[in-house]
Every structure is written in structure tokens, then in C-alpha cells.
């Protein structure tokens, strides 16, 4: 598995430089929606990796190496998890620095928005990645774009999280726990479906 992740890291290396610059820029823009875009971008990275794999027919070679098909599938999810986690940390870190410069502490709303955006992106990942495994990158990308458009509308509404929290009985803890549960369930199901789809590719 370490080999697969390292391969994906090398594959993304050039893109990662651009990606890190984008995250930093998006994080310093004083709008939580822009930070959200960075996290969405992180959740998209498996598409880029799978596109490179498809072009070189890497999968055909990899199934002949000491890897299981499940590991080949799981590595794509792991690369997204790592990217989303790193993006969240960078975004929060930058906002802490900006806050310190302005003499303001990181608010609960800021933290909650980053974490909930990450959850939304991981659920998005769980929905689109099985399609990418099933339909290939080109058609899978269309599915992703449709989902993105839908998710974007949802993300816009996150701006009103504070207002929602003020009037609703839902506590931040409930939101976090509910979100985490949704992420875990959706991703467990997605990995299982992706495994099944991937097995069929090599029948």
C-alpha cells in the first residue's frame, strides 16, 4: 500500500505545487467559501491520479504485482483523505495566523465550517469515486461536475451556518457527530461498491 501511495504522490507532485499555492491563496481570502473550494479541490485529486493511471494502463501492471485489487481501490480513497486532512490543517493554520495578526482568535464557526466542508467533500468523494471506477475518468468527471454543481449550492448555504445555529436546536456536537457518521457510512459503502466494480473490470 505504501508503494501505491508513493506512486500517487509522485504522480501528483507537479500538481501539488500548484495546489499548495491555490490553497494558500484561497485560505487568505477572507471568505470561508473560498477555503471550501480548496477542500473540494483536494477531494478531486483521485481523478487526476486515476487519469494518469489509465493513460499508462498502470492498473494492468499493478494487478500483477503483490497488491490486491482492494488495495488498488483503497489507495485512491486514502490519497483523498490525506489531501482533505492536509488542506483543512493548512486552511485552519493560515486562518490562525491571520487571526493572530488581526488580534482575533479562531472562531467556533470558522472551525466548524472547515470541518463540515471536509465532511461534505468526503461524502462527495464517496458518491463520485465509484462512478469513476465504473465509467472511467472521462465519464466519471461528468458525474463529478454534476455533483459539484449540486454541492456548490449546498456549500453556499454554509455561510448561514451561524444563523442556522442561532435558531436551531442542533448543537455543533450533534452536527459533527452526525457528519462524521455520514462520512464513515458513505465511504464504507463507496469503498465496497468500488471494490466490486473494480473486480468486474478484470473479469
Amino acid at each position, binding site marked *: 500500500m*505504501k*508503494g501505491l501511495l*508513493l*506512486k500517487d504522490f*509522485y*504522480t501528483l*507532485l*507537479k500538481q501539488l505545487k500548484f495546489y499548495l499555492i491555490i490553497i494558500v491563496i484561497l485560505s487568505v481570502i477572507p471568505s470561508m467559501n473560498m477555503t471550501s473550494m480548496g477542500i473540494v479541490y483536494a477531494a478531486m485529486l483521485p481523478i487526476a491520479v486515476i487519469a*494518469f*493511471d489509465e*493513460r*499508462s*494502463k*498502470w492498473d*494492468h*501492471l499493478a*494487478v*500483477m*504485482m*503483490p*497488491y*490486491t485489487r482492494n488495495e488498488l481501490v483503497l489507495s485512491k480513497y486514502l490519497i483523498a483523505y490525506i489531501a482533505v486532512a492536509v488542506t483543512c490543517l493548512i486552511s485552519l493554520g493560515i486562518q490562525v495566523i491571520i487571526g493572530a495578526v488581526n488580534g482575533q482568535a479562531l472562531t467556533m464557526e470558522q472551525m466548524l465550517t472547515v470541518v463540515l466542508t471536509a465532511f461534505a467533500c468526503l461524502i462527495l468523494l464517496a458518491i463520485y469515486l465509484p462512478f469513476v471506477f465504473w465509467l472511467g475518468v472521462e465519464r466519471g468527471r461528468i458525474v463529478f461536475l454534476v455533483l459539484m454543481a449540486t454541492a456548490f449550492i449546498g456549500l453556499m448555504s454554509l455561510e448561514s451556518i451561524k444563523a442556522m445555529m442561532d435558531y436551531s436546536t442542533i448543537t455543533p456536537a450533534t452536527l459533527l457527530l452526525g457528519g462524521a457518521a455520514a462520512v464513515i457510512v458513505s465511504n464504507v459503502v463507496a469503498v465496497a461498491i468500488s471494490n466490486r466494480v473494480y473486480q468486474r473490470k*478484470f*473479469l
Partner: protein
Amino acid sequence: MNAIELHGVTKRYDGFLLDNVSFALPRGAILGLVGENGAGKSTTIKLIMDAIRRDAGEIRVLGEDNQSPAFRAVKEDIGVVLDEAYFPEVLNATQVGAVMKQTYQRWNDAVYMNHLKLLDIPLKKAFRDFSRGMKMKLAIAVALSHDPKLLILDEATSGLDPMVRDEILTLFNDFTRDEEHSILLSSHIVSDLEKVCDYIAFLHKGKLVLCEEKDRLLEQYAIVKMPQYALDQLPADTVVSSKSGPYAVEALVKRDRLPHGTQTEFTTLETVILFLARGGDRA
């Protein structure tokens, strides 16, 4: 003991059937899997590595059923080179080495670097800028650098210039100096197989036409050129297949059936295979 054994292996696709294929690669030997494009060579290799599921039959690789959970460990002992399936194109040779170090438990950096040097492969050049020859050489360097007992090479020499092909065939010969080392080499370039192989398995339209020791094959068959009337006078079952020319008929015949003193032509493995394929078509 055999490095690879196939018994009655069958795989059906729309418009293609790999039909009841059985052959064995003894340890310490090189077996050439020959056949025209689309004969089923790559399908056979995928089946051997359990990259696709067989419909029927049994396959054992290095003594292990290739559908058993233990086969994953066996893959550590197998170096694979595939036709047109490579490492992601943005990687360079150094990065490929780092990835393979995390892939194979017995990966040997020193051996890998030595092969890269020997095969004149640049360390920092991206794989996408490699020529086909360089891509194949890198794939072979990887296949040889984790102490494999078995090499499985699918069309590893096709499309390469004669110099590179010769270089690679020498590497294969060196590899089998250890009697525990075996190679399954698929190609439609019969002359390459003739140079290095101990055994030849000939696939034609999804059927195994023969699997024989190369030397025995050349002992068994001969090419004769004679007028049709002379050919007709040969004992029954002597002619395997024939081709009419303007002045004479060229025929593949069984040497042991030929009358003493019959003049035979210089016979290469390639001509034997071509005539056998023609005979198969008529059958």
C-alpha cells in the same frame, strides 16, 4: 518441478475463445509463447497472473494455485513486463525504484541501479519522454531487481531495434544461468524466441497447436521443395502442410516419415511455425 502449469485452461470473450490450453514451463527453462496477434498470448499471461478469471481449468505458478490466497506471496517471486502497460508517465527511473522498493519485499536498490547503468537508462528523465526501447528496458530492470524466480514477459522485444533486442535477450540468458530461474516469453517475433528459448508453445486462434522442446521441433519437422507429383508420392501422413509455388511445392514434412535420402531445405523455427499455422487453418 514446473514453474508454470496450465491444465485445460479456458477463457471465453465475445468473439474469442482460449480453448482448453495445457502446457508446462519446467524450472530453469525459457518457454516461448508464440502466435499471431490476437492468438491469445496476452490473455494466457493475464490468466497465469490471475489478472483475469479463467472460465475453466487449473493454473499453478511456482507450485501454488494462482487463485489461492497464497498466490500474493508468490507474486514476490515473479517479475512481469507487459506490452503497453507501464509506470505512470510522469515518474522517472529514480521514482519508479522508490515505488518498487515499497512494493517488493526483496527489492534490491544496488541491483536496480546496476541494471539502469547497464541498460543506459537516464535516472531523472520522465517516463513519458522515453522511447519504446527505453520503456521496455526500464520495465525489465524493475522485473529483475526484486530477486525473481520467474520472469513473465509479454511482447517484451516487439517494436525494439535489433541492438536493444539482442541486449535484452542476453539479459534473459544470463538470468536463466541459475537453474531455479525460468522465463515465459511471449512474442510474435519467432526469431527472438529461436535465439533464447528451450521450449516453444504455439497458440493459434486461441488453441494450443503444440508445446515442444525447440530442438525436438526442429528435429521433428523439415521443409522440402519438390514438384507436386513427387510430393504426392511421399508416404501418407508425411506432409503437414504445403504451399504451391510457380515451379515447385514447398511443404512442411515429418522428418521420420521421409524416405531416406530426400533432400530437405534449411529449416528455421519460423518456417515450421508458419507452416503449422497454415496446416491448422486448413484443419
